[in-house]
């Protein structure tokens, strides 16, 4: 299969970025919007074509989806270690290509309406293209270092987009926070890469993941060296996962995600819901064979638990938030936790690998409906100029499209059949049930919570009592409505794609069947959640506050996101800034520098002290003269021998 044209998919956005970025002042906003959309559209079509080619035409060779790799040396470290730049075409990368390009396209279109009249319009589109380029590069990466490179680029474009309103201090600090937290996580990633490089002598996924078909185990010898009772490779994987956790806002690196909502809503939809935040999931999936085989998936277990706990934790917080974008942010976190959990509990061979499949599946569907939710929320915010539930209510009659689409998305995420979320979530629960009961129950519980908080905001926004709006809200323009409709359509049909035949851990594909009892349980739980939300929020009433009180402390903690921000603030401000940095600065001034000073000053001081010797008295001189003679004589006649 010829894959050279796939290079175009990332390169087009790059070209757009350079074009818009370099002469952002000269190009007219309208034009730049079109340039961005067109560029994105072409990438999108290309990736659709590529996906079609791969999945239906030439990808499958004797029952297995092959990897197609094309790479070129970019820099040499040693004779064996080098960074390659290239593309790696296989099922997950293509799946991601489709997700990224489609969502990005939608967001581009949406932004033309949403950002209209903003003075940084062109800059905005430039950033969007930069992000898309980086994300696509990340997806197509052939080795750890390439993925790390684009990983960082993704991070910086996220930084730029979060800080898009750079005159707003809150936006600036949010951007800073996002970058630094992820950077810290990436530290682990980098060290992990270094470990891999040192102990395996390669960065290539191909080599790292190579599975020996006979023995059905990893080719690479991971037991070579061990550190603190674990294989160093396991350490490497854990550290790499740390990077992934950072990007995917897993505990405890999640704190940047809610703040990231400071960015324009389309950005939140694209980066912080659909694509970038799932990079961590993608990374683990990329290295799945290693995660699975090295020390019987020790690292994989960690992934599973981190995922499960994060999803629960986030879902609980989401219930209490009042800023709808933050609610969505936490729901994103919880859904990604789902995916991580699915990967964590997955196996490798055939139906064993259902978790892997499910996680990819959920990644796909979630991208659709979560983007939809965000864009919907965006159009709501666009209409009422506020993020807070308290300023909203009864909007359904003003903005029907938004209402419907939002409802569809909500149903999808709540896992109500036949919407997309139902199918993927079901597979996840199946995987969890088969491998780890405890996680399964967490999963089910979270499903319920998800339905509840999602319909809480749904009702809060579109039903409930109307607020008095200074100017009556109206449906968004077509440029914003179209993406909503498109994504709504996707949210409905995406679930019907037989993922298990295309995207699996061993690339062989298998028959997936709906597990009716589990599905039934999940669905009921979802329905219950919705029903509760109905009871609480359909009409304006005080039930919610009453129950909130009854939860007392738990509610308070959840409301304050379990004080994670405060913790971080303490660590950075108090520890690093005041306890480490300040003393060092002081030490530098008062000790190191002062010593150098001291040497100089002492010299001058001495010369001041001894000036008396030159007394100007002839006879003192003579005395010194004679004394000198005597001393010399004494030394050389008596002492020396």
């Amino acid at each position, binding site marked *: 299969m010829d894959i050279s044209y796939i290079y175009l998919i990332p390169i087009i956005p790059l070209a757009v970025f350079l074009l818009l970025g370099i002469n952002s002042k000269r190009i007219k906003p309208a034009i730049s919007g079109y340039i961005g959309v067109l560029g994105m559209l072409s990438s999108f079509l290309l990736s659709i074509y590529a996906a079609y080619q791969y999945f239906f035409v030439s990808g499958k060779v004797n029952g297995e989806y092959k990897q197609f790799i094309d790479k070129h040396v970019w820099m040499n470290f040693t004779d064996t270690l080098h960074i390659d730049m290239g593309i790696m075409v296989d099922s997950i990368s293509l799946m991601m290509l489709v997700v990224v390009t489609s969502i990005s396209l939608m967001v581009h279109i949406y932004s033309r309406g949403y950002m209209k009249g903003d003075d940084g319009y062109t800059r905005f589109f430039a950033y969007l293209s930069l992000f898309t380029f980086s994300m696509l590069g990340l997806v197509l990466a052939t080795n750890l270092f390439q993925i790390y490179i684009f990983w960082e680029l993704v991070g910086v474009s996220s930084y730029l987009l979060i800080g898009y309103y750079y005159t707003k201090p809150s936006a600036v600090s949010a951007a800073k926070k996002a970058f630094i937290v992820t950077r810290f996580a990436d530290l682990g990633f980098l060290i992990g890469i270094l470990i891999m490089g040192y102990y395996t002598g390669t960065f290539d996924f191909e080599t790292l993941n190579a599975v020996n078909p006979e023995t059905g185990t990893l080719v690479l010898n991971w037991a070579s060296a061990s550190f603190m009772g674990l294989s160093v490779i396991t350490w490497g994987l854990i550290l790499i996962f740390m990077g992934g956790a950072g990007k995917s806002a897993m505990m405890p690196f999640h704190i940047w995600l809610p703040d990231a909502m400071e960015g324009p809503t389309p950005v939140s939809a694209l980066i912080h819901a659909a694509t970038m935040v799932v990079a961590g999931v993608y990374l683990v999936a990329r290295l799945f064979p290693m995660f699975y085989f090295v020390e019987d998936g020790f690292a994989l277990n960690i992934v599973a638990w981190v995922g499960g706990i994060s999803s629960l934790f986030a879902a609980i917080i989401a219930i209490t938030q009042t800023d709808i974008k933050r609610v969505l942010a936490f729901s994103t976190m919880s859904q990604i936790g789902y995916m991580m959990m699915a990967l964590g509990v997955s196996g490798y061979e055939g139906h064993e690998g259902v978790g892997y499949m499910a996680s990819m599946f959920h990644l796909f569907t979630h991208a659709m409906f979560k983007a939809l939710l965000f864009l919907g929320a965006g159009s709501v915010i666009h209409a009422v100029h506020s993020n807070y539930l308290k300023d909203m209510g009864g909007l359904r009659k003003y903005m029907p499209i938004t209402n419907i689409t939002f409802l569809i998305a909500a149903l999808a995420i709540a896992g109500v059949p036949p919407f997309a979320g139902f199918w993927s979530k079901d597979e996840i629960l199946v995987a969890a049930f088969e491998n780890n009961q405890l996680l399964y129950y967490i999963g089910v519980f979270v499903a319920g919570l998800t339905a509840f908080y999602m319909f809480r905001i749904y009702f809060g926004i579109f039903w409930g009592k109307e607020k008095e709006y200074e100017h009556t809200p109206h449906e968004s323009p077509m440029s914003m409505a179209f993406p909503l409709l498109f994504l709504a359509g996707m949210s409905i049909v995406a679930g019907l794609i037989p993922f298990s035949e295309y995207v699996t851990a061993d690339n062989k594909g298998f028959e997936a069947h709906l597990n009716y009892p589990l599905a039934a349980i999940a669905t009921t739980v979802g329905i219950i959640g919705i029903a509760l939300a109905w009871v609480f929020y359909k009409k304006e009433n005080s039930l919610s506050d009453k129950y909130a009180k009854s939860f007392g402390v738990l509610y308070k903690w959840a409301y304050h996101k379990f004080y994670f921000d405060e913790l971080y603030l303490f660590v950075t401000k108090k520890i690093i800034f005041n306890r480490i940095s300040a003393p060092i600065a002081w030490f530098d001034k008062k000790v190191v520098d002062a010593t150098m000073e001291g040497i*100089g000053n002492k*010299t*001058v001081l*001495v*010369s*001041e002290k*001894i*000036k008396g010797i*030159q007394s*100007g008295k*002839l006879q*003192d*001189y*003579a005395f*010194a*003269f*004679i*004394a*000198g*003679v005597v001393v*010399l*004589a004494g*030394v*050389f*006649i008596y002492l*020396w021998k």
Partner: protein
Amino acid sequence: MDFSSFLLMRHELILLVIILLLIVAEIFIPQHKKGSIVHLAIFLFGIHTAVGFLGMGDGVLFGGMFRTTGMIHFFKNVLNVGVFIILLQSADWLQEKIVAQHKGTEFFVLMFSSLLGMYFMISSGDFLMFYLGLELSTLPVAALAAYETSKRISSEAGVKLILSAALASGVSLFGISMLYATSGSIYFSEMAEMISVNNLTILGLILFFTGLAFKISLVPFHFWTADVYEGAPISVASYLSVISKGAAVFILMILLFTVFKPLMGIWENMIYIVALATMFIGNLFALRQQNMKRFLAFSSVAQAGFILLGIINGEQLGFATVIYFVLVYIFSNLAAFGVVQAISLQTGKENINDYEGLYRTNPKLSLVMMLALFSLAGIPPVAGFFGKFFLFTAAASKGYYLLVFLAVVNVTISLYYYLLVIRAMFLRKGENPIAFFTSKLYMRLGLVLTVLGIIVLGVYSPLYDYIFELSKGLM
């Protein structure tokens, strides 16, 4: 003996003739154009300097009392050049201050006879000649130091110089008598064979050494230096700082390397100690000086300390490097003194902070000063760097790495106070900087010569190799 061999004393004879001529001229030149005596003297001495460069063979006179070799010959020329530059730089001062008091001629007579003393000293073949040369070179300078009879500090300087010089020569005489006692001869050549390592000899060596150490102003025999430099006329100070120091170093090396070779084990360590003391004391005192003359006095003390690093080598390498350094040092120091001279002649200011903002009013002068100071501090690419570097090489070749290390520490200290002067001239603006002025021809010539020396001597490598060749003769 045939009298052609007297030509070996060509330098001495010509200088003697010049002295006599000047005295005669003093008699015949009418009062109102005494000024011309200056031109005459400079002219004559210029010829003498030029003639000096004509080649001359080696040889010995008076049964070994007087000897000359290529090296000695070369060094006399070096001294000539130095004195010539000093004359050029002090010409204006003489015209304006001294001639008016009818003391022009005596100045030249005294300085020349002191130079004559140097000649005899460095080409002496026995201690008698050496002693006479020493005294002949010292006494006139004492008179010169006290030359500005109207100034109290000048007489003070004279008193201090003459008395401490007398003490020094007395002590070193005592030493010589001991050496005479142990070796039974005052001829260098015979002594070198007879001399043996025993306490009396060592004591003699030490006592004798002090005499020269006094002239080179090594610690602790240096105390007179600063006071005399400050009190004496600038030209005399510069004469003391380069010419008499240079000559003393020269003869000291010859004696140590040849006569006292057997005692090398002793004098090496002696030099080691004295060198350290000299460098540190010199630098530490220079650190705080405000008066340029005192400042240069202590800096020259420190420089003497560096010179010892070459002497400690005790071989041809050391000899050559020291001579080379002295040559460079003469030019550098004279450049500095020349600028001081020019400024104090114009404005009477001699303090460092009077120099503030000098660059903006008199850029040329301050550039000359900067070059001179860099050369003294040993900053490439000016000559001083090479001089110092070679000295260090000489010391290091004998494995005195610690000594070299302490020396470079001192270089850094010295850099500090040299930079203080540069700071005053370049960095500061100054409330009332010295107004712009132009010096007379002689002064300019003098400064240009020194600058040429500073720049050329370093980069022009054949010179060093030439010196090295010459110094073979003495070993």
